[in-house]
């Protein structure tokens, strides 16, 4: 049990966010399965659903797993996990896995955004998270997309058609929504509004970033919002730096980190038992 064939180990990471639950399966250090499912009212079930979908895509079963780490806000109800680790530590490990030279991460998820400073081993040196409101998070973009009656994917594309960033004063999801509506009413081009919104989020997130004081080295952009090219370029401009985004879905970054930690911690445990 916990091992499909002699010498092969499988590890799982499950990241239950406010918006979606993500899971990644590792065979040693290689990603062999992944899944993203929406988070529903039952957080425990959502995490399990992600895990089982990832197991299915890897072609193995839960019994094959050696160790599972749960993270994200739903980590508190994850009976299926062997260990629970915060998303801060997991994101650091995930980003380090894809970009070994990374020195800092910006992660924008469904209901929070964070800046994490890394040491050379992918350990967290420092971190800052947003306040308890949704300003500058995926939730904010969702609310705006709804006000503009476009999908979240289209929101990203719309920026490309904008010729200037219309100034948006509010990053509060509620106030920004009414600001957008009045801008539309005054005849402002939709694409310019979207571009302005992306700058508003970028500025908000950049203040988080400045607080961790990371100057040199590679910066990584993770979380579901990292898929938004419009926001990414706005952030790059505001920060004056290039942001790396992994080819594997950046939304999976936390789950990847959780799976890596599952492996590290299990191996450490085995080593300890042998010693």
């Amino acid at each position, binding site marked *: 049990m916990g091992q499909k064939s002699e010498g092969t180990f499988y590890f799982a990471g499950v990241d239950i966010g406010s918006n979606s639950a993500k899971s990644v399966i590792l065979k040693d250090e290689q990603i062999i399965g992944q899944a993203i499912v929406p988070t529903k009212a039952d957080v425990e079930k959502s995490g399990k659903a992600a895990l089982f979908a990832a197991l299915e895509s890897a072609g193995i079963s839960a019994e094959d797993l050696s160790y599972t780490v749960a993270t994200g806000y739903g980590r508190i109800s994850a009976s299926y996990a062997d260990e629970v680790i915060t998303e801060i*530590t997991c994101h650091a490990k995930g980003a380090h896995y894809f970009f070994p030279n990374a020195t800092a991460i910006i992660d924008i998820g469904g209901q929070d955004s964070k800046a994490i400073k890394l040491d050379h081993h992918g350990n967290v040196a420092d971190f800052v998270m947003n306040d308890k409101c949704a300003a500058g998070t995926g939730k904010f973009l969702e609310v705006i997309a709804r006000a503009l009656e476009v999908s979240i994917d289209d929101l990203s594309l719309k920026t490309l058609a904008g010729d200037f960033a219309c100034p948006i004063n509010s990053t509060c999801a509620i106030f920004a929504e009414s600001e957008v509506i009045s801008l539309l009413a005054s005849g402002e081009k939709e694409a310019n509004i979207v571009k302005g919104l992306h700058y508003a989020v970028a500025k908000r997130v950049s203040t988080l970033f400045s607080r961790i004081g990371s100057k040199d080295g590679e910066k990584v952009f993770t979380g579901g919002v990292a898929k938004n090219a419009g926001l990414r370029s706005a952030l790059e401009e505001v920060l004056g730096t290039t942001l790396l985004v992994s080819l594997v879905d950046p939304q999976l970054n936390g789950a990847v980190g959780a799976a890596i930690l599952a492996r590290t911690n299990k191996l450490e445990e085995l080593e300890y038992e042998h010693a």
Partner: protein
Amino acid sequence: MPETLKRFEEALEHRPGELVEARQNGKKVVGVFCCYTPLEIIHSLGLIPLKLGWGGDDELAEQGIEYITNIQCPYVRQTIGVFKEGKNPYAVNTDVITISAVCLQEYRMVEVLRYYFGKETLTLSVPKNYYLPEGKEFFEKEVEGFTAELEKIAGRKLDPDLLRASVDLYADIRNNTAEIYDYLALDYSPITWKQVITVIHAGFYLSPEKHLSLLKELNSELKTIQMSEKVRPINSVRLMISGSIIAPGNTKIIDVLEELGVTVVADDICSGQRTFAGFTVKEPTLAGLAEAYLDRIPCAAQLYPDQKTDKRLENIFRQIKDHRADGVLYHTLRFCDPYTFRVQENKELLDAKDIPFLQLHTDYGANDIGQLHTRIQAQMEIIKRRKKEVHHARSQKAV
């Protein structure tokens, strides 16, 4: 849990009744806000001092919005809410309210209590230039004037011998509290930080004589408690709490810390360690008291002209060392500007010494508990990893 803590609880249960009776017999109760008011003077005049101010209840804090706005200090809002509600036995039984004016919001709160609740109030001005001879002189005069007002309320003059006795009594309380607090420096303390704070807060309400006798009792008991080793020190996370007031009733952060298994080993909160630490009355006179109170470890609302002689920072660093804290948890109450202004300064100073620093900015609402959990837990992960690395490096060396 030390048995004596139950005796503190019992004493507190009887206290409201005692106050009612004392007032019926003509005694006056003086409510004290902030920590620059010499309690010794109040006590020596035969008045009953109570330290007031409450936290941790969002609903009561909401009630304060009727008089100030919701973008002001929740501690101040709640304290106004407590007076408005009129159920708290200590608020109800207060005849006169005094404030040593250091924090502007708290000062305004006392004005609200005067205007809207008709409370008699007395202000002791505290100079911002407390470190200069002019500031000291000013405060000495303030204390004299303040005492003259208290004499009117008490209907008698200050007696030097009684003042001396009160000074000795409060010094004894501080020393006994310090002795209890020092246990927190140990690997396995027989008393938790939360319990130490409860013991300190009991003194806000109990008569100083009763408080002292209970503190002594607790001290003798603590000496007899043998601790079994539960958690290996390498796996424990020892934090110091710094920052804004954590007033009686506010257990929000400590509850999360306890749930996560963090050991709080020190604090420098005005409602905690700073009630007794860094304090010596050189002579039992008004001038002596003025000097001692003004020279105490200052609130962040005071000015610190020089970082090198800043006693608040010195107190933080000394405690980190003496109590072997793995990191500092810097709590800022929403809209508490004095402490929030200093976040970056504190962080940089601690970073320079490689001491992990985490700011928690919060109020009395429950809606950010999940986020507090994540932040504290992430900080614990950082600390545990570092401790493991240090431990590993040491054992490698040993081999």
